[in-house]
């Protein structure tokens, strides 16, 4: 065996090292899925049910609602389905951090992760990326299915780059909120179930972000509340891109505030999570037992 390296050099840091560790965490999620392939079928069934239910609800409401979504082509079914698919991706990024911290804590692995230079963050980011990628693949497959069956018509020449940017900002902003929620695992000792931040956010999205209810229908004060949610900008931007082929100023008007919000939320989420971990170190809260 080789001799031990000097202290502090035992674990190479840097972006490359972090990325490898992130990949390792995502790999574990992949191996778990391979081990339990039934989860793939469950995910498919869940996707089919969610899309199916909202398709028929939107279809039922469309005669009365089409007029309220004229800005997006006047098709309420398409309006709702695009929102539902995007929100599924957002929710995956939103919920992953708390679930990851909770699982690592109760599996008694959190302290072991903490010993590695980037252990906890690599675990958090790696599993978040896997969940987001998994959700994106499913929603992408659903979108292809809906377009192929004529259920959903997309505009010609959808700008893929701008759509990808909006998708990335959706993930980033929701991940930032997710990290804020995950920090409550230590800050407020929320040890099971859901953290209050993501729980409140999830329900706000359903009411004031334009997910199901067109913003034009909402009273002014609710519309104002919706301006604080990243999903509001994501839905508006992506519907404009996919359903009307809009580009340029119409999309920039959504992307800029979304970008600012995403930056603030990611920084805020990371800061809160870092604070929570330091506090857990002071109070002995990283381990299940002292």
């Amino acid at each position, binding site marked *: 065996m080789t001799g031990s390296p000097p202290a502090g050099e035992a674990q190479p840091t840097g972006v490359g*090292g972090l990325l490898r560790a992130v990949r*390792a965490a995502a790999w574990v999620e992949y191996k778990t899925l391979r081990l*339990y392939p039934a989860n793939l079928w469950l995910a498919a069934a869940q996707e089919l049910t969610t899309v199916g239910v909202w398709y028929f609800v939107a279809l039922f409401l469309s005669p009365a609602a089409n007029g309220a979504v004229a800005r997006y082509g006047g098709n309420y079914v398409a309006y709702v389905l695009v929102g539902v698919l995007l929100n599924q991706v957002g929710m995956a990024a939103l919920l992953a951090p708390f679930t990851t911290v909770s699982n690592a804590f109760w*599996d*008694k692995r959190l302290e072991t992760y903490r*010993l590695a230079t980037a252990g906890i963050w690599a675990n958090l980011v790696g599993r978040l990326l896997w969940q987001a990628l998994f959700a994106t693949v499913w929603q992408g497959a659903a979108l292809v299915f809906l377009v192929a069956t004529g259920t959903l018509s997309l505009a010609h020449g959808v700008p893929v780059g701008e759509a990808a940017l909006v998708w990335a900002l959706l993930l980033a902003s929701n991940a930032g909120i997710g990290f804020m929620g995950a920090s409550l695992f230590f800050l407020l000792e929320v040890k099971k179930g859901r953290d209050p931040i993501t729980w409140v956010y999830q329900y706000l999205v359903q009411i004031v972000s334009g997910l199901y209810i067109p913003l034009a229908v909402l009273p002014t004060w609710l519309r104002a509340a919706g301006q604080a949610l990243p999903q509001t900008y994501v839905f508006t931007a992506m519907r404009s891109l996919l359903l009307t082929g809009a580009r340029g100023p119409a999309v920039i008007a959504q992307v800029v505030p979304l970008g600012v919000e995403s930056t603030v939320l990611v920084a805020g989420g990371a800061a809160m999570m870092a604070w929570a971990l330091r506090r857990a170190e002071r109070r002995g809260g*990283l381990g299940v037992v002292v």
Partner: protein
Amino acid sequence: MAVIAVAGLAKHYGRRRQTAALRGVDLTLEDGAVLGLLGPNGAGKTTLIKILAGLLRPDAGGGRVLGFDLLRGAREIRAAVSLVAPTADVGLDNNLTVRQNLVFWAPIYGLYGARARQRIDSLLARLSLEGKADAWPMHISAGQRQRLALARSLLAENRLLFLDEPTNKLDAEGVRSVRSLIAELNQQQGTTVVLTTHVMEEAQELCSEVALLHRGAVVRHAEVGALLRSLEEVRPIQLEIAARGRPIAVPPAGALPQAVRIQVQTGEGGAVSVTIWSRDVPATTPAVVDWIRGAQLPVRKMTSQRLTLDDVFALVHTSPPEVGP
């Protein structure tokens, strides 16, 4: 060079800090030593180890571990030490095989490619897990899971290794292989080891020095041989008395020449065990015999023997020490 040099470490738990886990611990450990941390449950061993490993912040005190400041350099300390907790085997991923568990952790600890594969193969061989490399953790024994947890902690080849009851769940073969590995790591690689154990034989076999913890304080820290030699003058005189419910009036230690403490334990069937700790057994024995005759005690057996760490542990942890260097 001291790999651990800390002083005044204190830690309290609870919202009002009502539970004192550590009360002013001073500890210095030289490079290449094997330190045994001994103490009963609740003495503060795990808390001390977590503080030294950078996982827990002390409420008071400070110092250096591997040259890094304990308070400001916790991140660097964590990267440079390895730790195996008693529940480490529970933290294995049951969705990965034995080998895959190590494959997952290797890049977390900065090991990649061929170096990672060689290291994993080496650890599996040294911890007798080669035959179980493709098994699932829930299908191997608790001892094998403990050895896998140890293998995981050794991936990083760190200079300082903390082992919290490493042979806790192991069978005889597992105990031998782990003790052999610890000795090899220390003697061949110069790894400094801090281990907690309740098995005195293990501390005597593996450790170059021991620190005895009692109620959050280090009450004795010395080389094993020196500790035993310094306390050899204190030896137990043990009496087994068939009391059968009869009350026994035990004299105070001060009434017997050179006696420092007297412990009384009641056993099954009304048998009473009296241990008289004495600095000079030949001087104390006549007084003990006079007491037995005067009280007409039905003594079954009277013995005196050399001290082991078990006796040192029992002597120190049940009351503040009254003897020793």
